[in-house]
């Protein structure tokens, strides 16, 4: 199987504390891969490290994306290679219209038509006529902003979309839409790395990994991993750290 992303022994510390303790992970081409784990397990840190955000430079290990080590690449360069990230709490942009925001990511693919932008909004259940000219600013609700963030991933068509808790701040009824959207990203040609607490999203994945205290404890069938996390995972407070990677 060919892997779009391969992480080997990724180690990262922040403020003198080891946050990633040797992450090993492989994500296949057009694979939906969920990472589940308790708060503080290092899931978002892993997402930021993959995107190359400032302050998340890893000390050891390697990130091989599409056959290339991306260690020295900036955020922009990684994005141009095809990696992108949807933040759990997306940034707000005063004065920037939704139509312009959604067009930004598509520049690398030769631009985008207005109809394609409208279609991306429809996919996240937002009416284009209502949202195209709105600002990506404070006036949007948290749920609206999250949907627009997902729409911006659709218009970008990345090789690897990293979604950091795309379900947070969105009501349960909308979970089905998020799941179908993630599938649509795959059908569009993207691999998707989803960080989530929700079983429904993990269940819709091709594969899942359980992350604990900065390491991947086990990877495999999403239902099995989800079940293990829910019923057999030792509560963090009662565990002797660090856990052993299985």
């Amino acid at each position, binding site marked *: 199987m060919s892997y779009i992303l391969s992480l080997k022994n990724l180690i990262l510390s922040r403020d003198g504390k080891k946050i990633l303790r040797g992450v090993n992970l492989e994500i296949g081409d057009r694979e939906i891969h969920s990472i589940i784990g308790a708060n503080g397990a290092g899931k978002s840190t892993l997402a930021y490290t993959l*995107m190359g*955000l*400032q302050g998340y430079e890893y000390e050891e290990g390697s990130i091989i994306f599409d056959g290339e080590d991306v260690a020295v690449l*900036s*955020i*922009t360069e*990684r*994005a*141009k290679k095809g*990696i*992108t*990230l949807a*933040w759990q709490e*997306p*940034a*707000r*942009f*005063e*004065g*920037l219209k939704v139509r312009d925001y959604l067009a*930004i*990511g598509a*520049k*690398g693919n030769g631009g985008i038509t207005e109809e394609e932008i409208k279609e991306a909004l429809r996919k996240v259940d937002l009416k284009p006529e209502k949202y195209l000219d709105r*600002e990506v600013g404070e006036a949007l609700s948290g749920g609206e902003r999250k949907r627009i963030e997902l729409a*911006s991933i659709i218009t*970008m068509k990345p090789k690897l979309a990293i979604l950091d808790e795309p379900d947070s701040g969105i009501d349960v009824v909308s979970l089905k839409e998020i799941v179908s959207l993630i599938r649509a990203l795959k059908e569009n040609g993207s691999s998707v790395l989803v960080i989530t607490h929700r079983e429904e999203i993990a269940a819709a994945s091709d594969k899942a990994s359980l992350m604990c205290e900065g390491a991947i404890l086990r990877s495999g069938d999403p239902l099995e991993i989800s079940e293990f996390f829910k019923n057999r995972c030792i509560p963090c407070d009662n565990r002797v750290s660090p856990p052993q990677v299985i």
Partner: protein
Amino acid sequence: MTPITLNALSRETEDITAAYTAAGGDSAVLHNHGLASLVVSGNKVLSANGTEGIVIEKKETEHGVDIKLIIKKGYKIPLPVHLCFGLVHKDGLQEIKMDFVAEEDSAVELIAHCTFPNAEKVIHKMEAEMLIGKNASLKYTETHFHGPYGGIQVLPKAHVTIEEGGRYYTNFSLISGRVGYLEFDYSVDAGKDSICEMVTKVYGKADDIIKIFERVSLNGENARSVIKSRLAITDNAESIFRGITEGHAPRARGHVDCMEVLQGNAKAEAVPIVRVDNPLAKVTHEAAIGCVDKKEVETLMARGLEEDDAIDIIVKGMLA
């Protein structure tokens, strides 16, 4: 005094029209007799066109023009009135005195472009007295273009009185080209049930100096106001913002909102001041100065933009 020939006037009209376009104006509106307009170059009134319900009186002075603009009682002017003030020469002094009255129950939108495309040593002073009558409405948009040299001092000063039920919306922007030295000084007295919204947007570069002084006095019951300022400064530019709102009457509501973004060696100071002497009035404020938000920049970079382009989009959005 040098006699002005028709050819010279024609040339000056062409020059100021080109400068008006450079400032973002649509020159066709200045030649449309169905629209009210006024074009002033230096101390010359090049054209003045009133329409029904509008009275324009003008008097050329040694260094500028005195203007009286009246919107007659009850007239709702359907299309914007276009104003152009400018100086196309490298140096000079332009003094504009404006006496504006929107009489009771009238409504008008004024769109002004102030253009100094070649300014190397220019002073532009504007002193205005504006009266928004009972239940009248004025929407005033002023866009400046100062060219690339920065050799200009712009000193607009206005006192605005809003009578009962009046509405005053103003938007001042100077985001293309250099600022030079700007000292913007507006004060507003707001009467019962009136609304005042003042927005300033300025982008300072090189050694530009920006001073924004705005004061709203909420004198009447239920008067409401917002002072909103968006400043972006880079290189060695400096800015000072002072926004004062005073609540003197029951149920008066005011808000002062200043956001400044710094890059390079720029320096900024923001002082929102709120004064309330009526226990039923409420005035709030917020001010933020800082570099461009890191998460915003990284978000746009994660969509493939270079860092400088990301910052440019964020700053332009803030000033849009």
